[in-house]
């Protein structure tokens, strides 16, 4: 068992090494795009004004037509360089090591590998990376590679250095099938929110660049238009929202079993509720005049920041019943 644990750690460090190179190459790709003449992506119709006027799809107003036509008019004009291909291949390799590390940890612990903060961090980042890789089959969002590998690398570094704990058996409160379901779905939700937030950040950068005609960050011109990015971010965030809703309900069912009540405003419950409310606000904001676009993007980013806050600060600094960090 000891061997498996150290093997798992070796795999984590190897994954981090591979991710580092992948991150550098993804960054180089973006830098290279900036240097090269942008593809005439500016012919894209999308402007911030468009994004903000195309509102109220929820009410079935005809402006939805504008939005829909415009999205397809701005399908990615892929300005990717050869660095991206190498970076992506390394990201896949890094993920294989990362996944291996996670599975080894689970085998060593003889249980699911997400029972303390280190393990949750390990699994959630693997989930984020896995979802990022799978999303490519649906839409090419490899331009987020630098963001995702950078974020994963940073998170893995923090959890292995600061949150690492040895394998210990599960305390009675965690001995439940809900540990498998509730936490697994929470990592899935986190993964989707992470990618959604990345797209929202790109969207904001892009729309700022369009409005202010800034000269920096020229790689943004090779990305899809702000409203396409917005639409992609929305579609990932709503999947995250569904998973988050499930996490909340499953958590409540488990809380009834373990703590004698399904809802008690424990600090973790409070923050799960806050995050749910923020993303509910985000979804409604998209259907509200004047909120779709930049403002709704900010809500998605704040929502994801709250997810990170919930995992880090709430676990470490706040007192509550979810004190399973093992720290």
């Amino acid at each position, binding site marked *: 068992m000891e061997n498996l644990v150290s093997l798992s750690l070796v795999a984590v460090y190897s994954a981090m090494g591979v991710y580092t190179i992948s991150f550098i190459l993804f960054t180089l790709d973006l830098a290279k795009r900036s240097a090269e003449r942008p593809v005439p992506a500016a012919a894209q119709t999308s402007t911030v004004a468009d994004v903000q006027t195309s509102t109220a799809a929820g009410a079935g*107003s005809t402006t939805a037509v504008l939005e829909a036509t415009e999205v397809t008019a701005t399908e990615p004009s892929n300005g990717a360089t050869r660095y991206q291909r190498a970076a992506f291949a390394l990201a896949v390799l890094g993920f294989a090591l990362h996944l291996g590390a996670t599975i080894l940890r689970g085998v060593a612990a003889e249980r699911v590998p997400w029972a303390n903060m280190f393990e949750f961090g390990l699994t959630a980042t693997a989930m984020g990376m896995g979802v990022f890789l799978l999303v490519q089959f649906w839409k090419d969002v490899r331009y987020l590679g630098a963001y995702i590998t950078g974020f994963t690398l940073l998170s893995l570094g923090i959890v292995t250095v600061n949150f690492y704990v040895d394998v210990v058996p599960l305390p009675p409160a965690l001995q439940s099938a809900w540990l498998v379901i509730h936490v697994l779905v929470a990592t899935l939700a986190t993964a989707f929110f992470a990618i959604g937030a990345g797209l929202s950040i790109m969207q904001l950068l892009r729309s700022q660049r369009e409005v202010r005609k800034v000269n920096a960050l020229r790689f943004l011109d090779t990305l899809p238009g702000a409203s396409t990015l917005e639409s992609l971010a929305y579609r990932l965030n709503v999947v995250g929202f569904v998973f988050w809703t499930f996490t909340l309900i499953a958590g409540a069912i488990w809380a009834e079993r373990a703590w004698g009540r399904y809802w008690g405003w424990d600090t973790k419950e409070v923050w799960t509720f806050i995050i749910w409310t923020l993303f509910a606000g985000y979804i409604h904001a998209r259907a509200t005049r004047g909120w779709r676009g930049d403002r709704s993007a900010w809500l998605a980013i704040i929502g994801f920041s709250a997810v990170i806050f919930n995992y880090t600060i709430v676990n470490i600094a706040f007192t509550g019943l979810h004190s399973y960090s093992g720290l």
Partner: protein
Amino acid sequence: MDARPASPVQPNLDAAGWARFIWRQLTSMRTALVLLLLLAVAAIPGSLVPQRSADPNGVVQFEQSNPDLFPVLDALQVFDTYTSVWFSSIYLLLFVSLIGCIIPRTQHHAKALRARPPATPARLDRLVGHTERRASVDVETALAEARTLLRKQRFRVERYGDSLSAERGYLRETGNLVFHMALVGILATIGLAGGFGYNGQRVIVQGQTFTNQLTSYDSFSPGRFFDETRLDPFSIRLDEFEAVYDAVFDAETMTVRPIPLDFTASVTVVENGAARAETVKVNEPLPLGATNAYLLGNGFAPWITVFDAEGTAVFSQPVPFLPQDANLTSLGVVKVPDGLDEQLGMIGFFYPSAVALDSGALSSVFPEPDNPVLTLNAFEGDLGLDEGVPRNAYSLNTDDLDQITGGDTGVDSIVLQLGESAELPDGRGSVEFTSLPRFVSLDIHHDPTQAGVLISSLLVLAGLLTSLFVPRRRLWVVATADGDEVRLQYAGLARGDDAGLERAVGELADRHVEALTHHDRATTR
């Protein structure tokens, strides 16, 4: 949610006009959004300071460490955030806004469900995915084939002249309404059924029996509509409590850390006159009719016997000591009101596995009773038990008492191992650590909201899934005779987010033409 902008303010509004104006504002999407975000922000303070409902001891500690800040925050109801006036106002307004939104939308949707798809627009070329095809069939064949295709895709189809108008995805709006109604359902269930519930805590020492009646509880919080007859008649006796620990050596601190593996309380339940053996574990509550008993804590209740100077036992019972750390170093209070010359009070620590630190102080190194030691400081005087004021059994107010052992008295504290006894100073009598039963702390919870909230929550999830992932769209097919051929136009309109609409229009056109080609071949053959 109503996404229409609020109507412009009319001058000289009368009372009804103002009411309507305020109602419109309240039920507007913008207001709902602001209330929603406000709710998220308002929930934050409750996670920053301890809450009376979840952590009453934390509130007491907060008051002690922040005596100046406490009254201000308390006046702002920050320690009861989730029942505070401001938090309640936000969510009640939000739900009023929500209901004000659901009702007209439900009516509207009910009409839409019965209505025919709307007439085909005069010009399709400005709509989503507008595309044209040609086929060498007549108009009737083309439309009949298109109708079959659309029907297969579960569209509702209506013919207007030489065109078809089709709509699908009514389930999207149904799901959306179910989602919002189920949220109201959760709140309504809690508001209505919550008042009939109760929960209480009780410490039960091995061998003791708890009977479900009001006076048996250590603490009890009834719902608003609770009355004593709602207590299900049952009793629980704790036969045995077993704790299993693993020991993990921590190389960094050179100490052994206990890892709890299992807590099992074996109990005998008497319900409706029949006794049965049961177990209660963490994550496995004991069902007692509509009430559940949860195992939330455990510890040791050293049996303490106090003898007077003549050797007659004046006090003999187990005293639950409350655990203070993972190694079950526990704090307890003994009150002996009768039998001695003066009332006797003792505050003590219990160490299940005691070791002496370099400083001479004791510490417990493991939660199992490997070397159980009890230390007691004794006080005498008026315990204040006769004033009729309820006293916390777990605390001793020493203000009016004289200390007789430990502290500055010059007399050593009483230190007892299991089975030992020690003299009280000046021939007052003696104290014996007689035996070491365990106790469990049970939470008895009757919550009539559970089923309603669970069903509502699942409806929330189901409504959410359909409202987000079922596309609601309209499609049109216009057929125009053009010589021997027919000119076909297709276009769509999204109702709500529908990223796949353009592709859907294209696919319909392709399939339609393909079907017509087959049809053409079949007829010419």
